[in-house]
C-alpha cells in the first residue's frame, strides 16, 4: 500500500439492525496522518460507523476498506494495526495497571519482553508510572481513560480510534488527554474520533463530518464548515427577560439586518458577517436589547443549525 492511498475509504456504507437503519449510506475518505472527527447528536450513527471501521461490526451493504484491506474478510489483519479507545473503558479491573497493558500486548502477539518495555514507556507517556502496580479498580475516571489510551498504543498502531475520548472527564483530565492526542498527531499517527464537544473537534480535528440520522450532513475543516453554514460572527440579543412569543415578535422587526436570524426561547441569534454593523442597525431600528453579545461563530453554531435544537435521547 503506497503512502498516498487513503487509509480508510467507505462507499455507500449502510448498517441496519432489523428495521432500524443506523448508518444510511456514508461515503468518506481519511488520509494518512489526518485527524478526522465524527460529530453528531446521539444516535447519529457515529459509533456504529466507528465499530465498522474497527472491524467488530459488519456493514449491511456498501464497501469499506481500512489500510487497503476489506473489513469483513481481513478484520484480524486490520485490527492488528489499529488502536481502539472505546466509549466505555474495557479495562480488566481485577488486574493491575501494568498487567492490563502487558496482557493486551499479548493479544497482538507481542513478546513479553517487548510488551513490558512498551508498557513502561506508555505509562510514562500518560503519566501513570506511579500507579503501575495498582489495581485498575482504584483509578479515577481520568486515569482509566489515559490507561485505555496507553493500551490502544501498545501495538504501535497506524491509526488510533477514539469514541468520545473525554466524555465525563474533568477539565484537567480533558486537557491532558488532548495534549497527548496532539502529540500523537505530531508523530504522524492518524486519529479518528467521535465527539459531541465542539471545542474538542475544533482543537483536534483537521477535518470532520457532521452526521445526522445516519448520514453525513456536511464535511470539511472546522473553518470551512463555519464559512459554509453560518456567518463569520454571531450576535446574541436578550430583551429584559422576554420569552418565546415576545421574542418572535421582536425578531420580525429585525428582518433583513443579518444573513440569518434565529429566535430561541431566551434570546435571538443574528448571524452576521460583521457583528458591529448588525448591532448598530438593531439600535437604528429603535430596539433596545438588555444585553448584546458579539462573538465569532463556532462549530457549535454549525452543529446546531445542521442537526437541529431538538433534544435527541
Amino acid at each position, binding site marked *: 500500500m503506497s503512502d498516498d492511498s487513503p487509509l480508510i475509504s467507505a462507499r455507500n456504507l449502510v448498517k441496519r*439492525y432489523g428495521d432500524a437503519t443506523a448508518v444510511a449510506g456514508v461515503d468518506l475518505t481519511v488520509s494518512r496522518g489526518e485527524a478526522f472527527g465524527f460529530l453528531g447528536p446521539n444516535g447519529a450513527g457515529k459509533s456504529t460507523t466507528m465499530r465498522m471501521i*474497527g472491524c*467488530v*461490526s*459488519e456493514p449491511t451493504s456498501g464497501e469499506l476498506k481500512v489500510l487497503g484491506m476489506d473489513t469483513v474478510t481481513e*478484520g*484480524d*489483519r486490520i*485490527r*492488528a494495526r*489499529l488502536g*481502539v479507545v*472505546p466509549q*466505555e*473503558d*474495557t*479495562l*480488566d*479491573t*481485577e*488486574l493491575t495497571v501494568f*498487567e492490563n497493558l502487558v*496482557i*493486551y500486548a*499479548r*493479544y*497482538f*502477539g507481542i513478546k513479553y519482553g517487548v510488551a513490558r518495555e512498551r508498557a513502561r514507556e506508555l505509562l510514562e507517556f500518560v503519566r501513570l508510572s506511579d500507579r503501575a502496580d495498582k489495581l485498575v479498580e482504584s483509578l479515577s475516571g481520568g486515569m482509566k481513560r489515559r490507561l485505555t489510551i496507553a493500551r*490502544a498504543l501498545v*501495538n504501535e498502531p497506524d491509526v488510533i480510534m477514539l469514541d468520545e475520548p473525554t466524555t465525563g472527564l474533568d477539565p484537567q483530565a480533558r486537557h491532558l488527554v488532548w495534549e497527548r492526542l496532539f502529540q500523537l498527531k505530531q508523530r504522524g499517527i492518524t486519529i479518528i474520533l467521535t465527539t459531541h464537544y465542539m471545542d474538542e473537534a475544533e482543537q483536534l480535528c483537521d477535518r470532520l463530518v457532521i452526521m445526522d440520522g445516519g448520514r453525513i450532513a456536511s464535511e470539511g475543516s472546522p473553518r470551512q464548515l463555519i464559512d459554509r453554514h453560518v456567518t463569520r460572527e454571531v450576535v446574541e440579543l436578550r430583551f429584559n427577560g422576554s420569552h418565546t412569543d415576545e421574542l418572535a415578535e421582536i425578531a420580525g422587526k429585525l428582518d433583513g439586518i443579518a444573513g440569518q436570524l434565529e429566535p430561541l426561547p431566551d434570546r435571538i441569534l443574528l448571524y452576521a458577517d460583521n457583528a458591529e454593523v448588525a448591532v448598530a442597525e438593531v439600535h437604528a431600528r429603535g430596539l433596545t436589547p438588555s444585553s448584546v453579545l458579539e462573538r465569532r461563530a463556532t462549530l457549535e453554531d454549525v452543529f446546531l443549525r445542521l442537526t437541529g435544537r431538538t433534544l435527541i435521547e
Partner: protein
Amino acid sequence: MTNAFHAFEHWMLQYRRVWHGTVFSGFVMPVLFMLGIGLGVGAYIDDTAAIGGVSYAAFIAPGLLASTAMQITVGEMTWPVFGALRWGAQYKAMQASPLRPVDMLNGHLLYGLLRGLISAVVFLIVMAFFGVVSSGWAPLAVVPAMLTAFSLIGFMYAYAVSIDSEMGLSIVQRFVIVPITLFSGVFFPLSQLPQYLQPVAWLSPLWHGAELSRWAVSGTATPWFWPLHAVYLIVLGVAGWWLASRRLAKRLTI
C-alpha cells in the same frame, strides 16, 4: 492456535491470583467425598458382587474422578463465560485486537480444561491416599475424565453465551449436571436402574467416562468395546465446540 494461547494467557493471569484457593478446595472436596460416601455409605454395603467385588469406595472413586473433572470444567463455563460477555470487559477488549471469536473461544475452553485437569490430578492423588488405586494404569483415568469434561464444555459454553439471563445457569446446574452426576453409574451400577431407563443413561457422557476411568483404575472391563466410549465423548465434544463457535461469533458480530 497461537492466538488462542494469547487469549488463554489472559485467563491464566487472572487465575494466578486465586490458584492456591482452588487447589486447596480441590483437595478438600474429594477427601469429603471419599470419607462421607466412600467410607460412610460404603460401611452399609455388604454385598459387593454387583459392583465387581471391590469395596464401595473403590467402586465410586474412578467415577467421582470423572465427575469432578466434568463439574469443575463445566462450572468454569457458566458464570465466568456469561460474565465475560455480559458484565466484564474481557471479550470486548479482546475484540479490538487481532483475536477472532474462535480464538477467544478456544482460549477460554483451554483454560476450563486446564482447571478440570488440575482437579482430576488432585483427585487421583487423594484416591491414592485412600488406597483405592490398585493398578499401575490408574493415572490414565485422567484421560477419560478429561474426555468427559471435553464432551460437555462446548455445549455449556454455547448455552452461557446464548442466554439473556443468568437464571438459566442455575437451571442447567440443577436439572442437567446434577442428574447426570447421579444417574451415570458413578454411585451405583447402571444395572440397578430399571431396564427401560438404562439406554437413557447411555446418553450421559459421564457414564462413558466413569466406565473408562474404572477400567483404568481397577481393571474392571468396560460394558462396550472401549473405543466406542471414547469416540462417543469425542464426537459430543466436537459438536459442542462447533455449536459454541457459531453462537459466540453470532453474539460478537453485530
